[in-house]
């Protein structure tokens, strides 16, 4: 049995999704961070805040995506102060891609930037590995996204409501988790619109079971939440 290198570089195999709807965007992600076959963090938060109104979904190297987000948050903060008003999603996405493109030899991270601003409304920008920037009505990324292309081709439509968009995202992430070994854990979503930002959390046992998946038995969750045994009466 090969020894697990628990201190090796952490990768977020990942499934990340960003979807626009009528009035804003919904960002979604799984929560598995792995080093090889060891799951280093089974409840990680891959949706990171850049400004009050712009968030980014991170995939690939955990370190690379974190550092990149930190830099962009710093630049955006200064830009907001200079401008005197919130930065637009486009500007945030452009800063992300400049860093991703100019350091392409050193970085291995794919990102989805999503948010809401008063000029353009809800917008999603994909910034995949080489540092391209592409504005899209929806974007998928990470190793789990391979299993979602056909799904989105069939299910995607413009002008969804917030509820439709969020349930689409949750369904998609859970489908990817079912098939991709590098994705798992819980589903986190972030909804961004004119009214602000809402974070949601869908634990693993609330997600639907797909084809050939077995329901959890003797799960740690059941054992932990079971009532303590009654003392015997004499």
């Amino acid at each position, binding site marked *: 049995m090969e020894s697990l290198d628990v201190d090796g570089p952490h990768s977020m195999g990942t499934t990340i999704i960003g979807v626009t709807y009528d009035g804003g965007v919904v960002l979604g992600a799984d929560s598995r961070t792995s080093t090889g076959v060891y799951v280093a963090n089974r409840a990680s938060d891959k949706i990171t805040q850049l400004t009050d109104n712009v968030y980014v979904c991170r995939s690939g190297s955990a370190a690379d995506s974190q550092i990149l987000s930190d830099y962009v948050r710093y630049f955006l903060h200064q*830009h907001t102060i*200079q*401008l*005197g008003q919130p930065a*637009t999603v*486009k*500007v945030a*996405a*452009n*800063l992300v891609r*400049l860093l991703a493109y100019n350091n392409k030899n050193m970085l291995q991270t794919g990102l989805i930037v999503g948010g809401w601003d008063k*000029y353009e409304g809800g917008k999603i920008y994909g910034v995949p590995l080489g540092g391209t*920037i592409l504005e899209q009505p929806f974007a998928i990324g990470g190793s789990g996204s391979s299993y979602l292309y056909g799904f989105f081709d069939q299910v995607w439509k413009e002008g969804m409501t917030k509820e439709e968009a969020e349930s689409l995202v949750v369904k998609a992430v859970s489908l990817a988790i079912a098939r991709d070994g590098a994705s798992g854990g819980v589903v986190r979503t972030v909804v961004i619109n004119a009214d602000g930002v809402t974070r949601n959390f869908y634990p693993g046992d609330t997600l639907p079971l797909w084809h050939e998946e077995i329901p959890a038995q003797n799960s740690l969750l059941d054992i932990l939440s079971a009532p303590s045994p009654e003392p015997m009466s004499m």
Partner: protein
Amino acid sequence: MSSIGTGYDLSVTTFSPDGRVFQIEYAAKAVDNSGTVIGIKCKDGVVMGVEKLITSKMMLPGSNRRIHSVHSHSGMAVAGLAADGRQIVARAKGEASSYESVYGEAIPVKELAGRVANYVHLCTLYWWLRPFGCGIILGGYDRDGPQLYMIEPSGISYRYFGAAIGKGKQAAKTEIEKLKLSEMTCREGVIEIAKIIYKIHDEAKDKAFELEMSWVCDESKRKHEKVPVELLEEAKAAARLALEEMDAD
């Protein structure tokens, strides 16, 4: 010329006892000696006009431009030392271009005005630089609507709905104040500015002048460009007519 600031006006890095920097004030005088430049913000855009005093009969009309485009959405009209103005325009173009490279969108007009003002002010801080001898009227149309800014040699920049610099600025400001700008379209604004410039031009002191005008409005698809030739001619004709009517009284 009386030397008011004797001793305290030799360098831009010296304050006078009453808190003035004379070199900057002298730079402003260079602006006051040049042909009038006017800018107005109408309800659908910005119009700028320049009274270009012609120094030589041999100059080709249309040469020696005083209004420059800085970006597709904004332009600057310069009063004062023309060579200084060229430097500022070049810097403004550079700022607009570098902003777009970093942030991926067109520079907001407010930000552009701030950067130009910063640059002009910078050159009033060092003894080995002289202040710019020009005033700038910057007009632009971005996602926050049409805006008009004026930048003085001191580096002060304010946002206006009507501004004038140069020889006839007092007379021009009086005329601008009479206009109802919030109800005026740029098409009407072009005619009004032409009338004002013709009116304040001093025939006795300065011989000939050429009228140069530009606009950025809904009609020009939010692009800064020279006022179309037919409209310019229409404006000049209206202005000459207004002058004759005035003289006839």
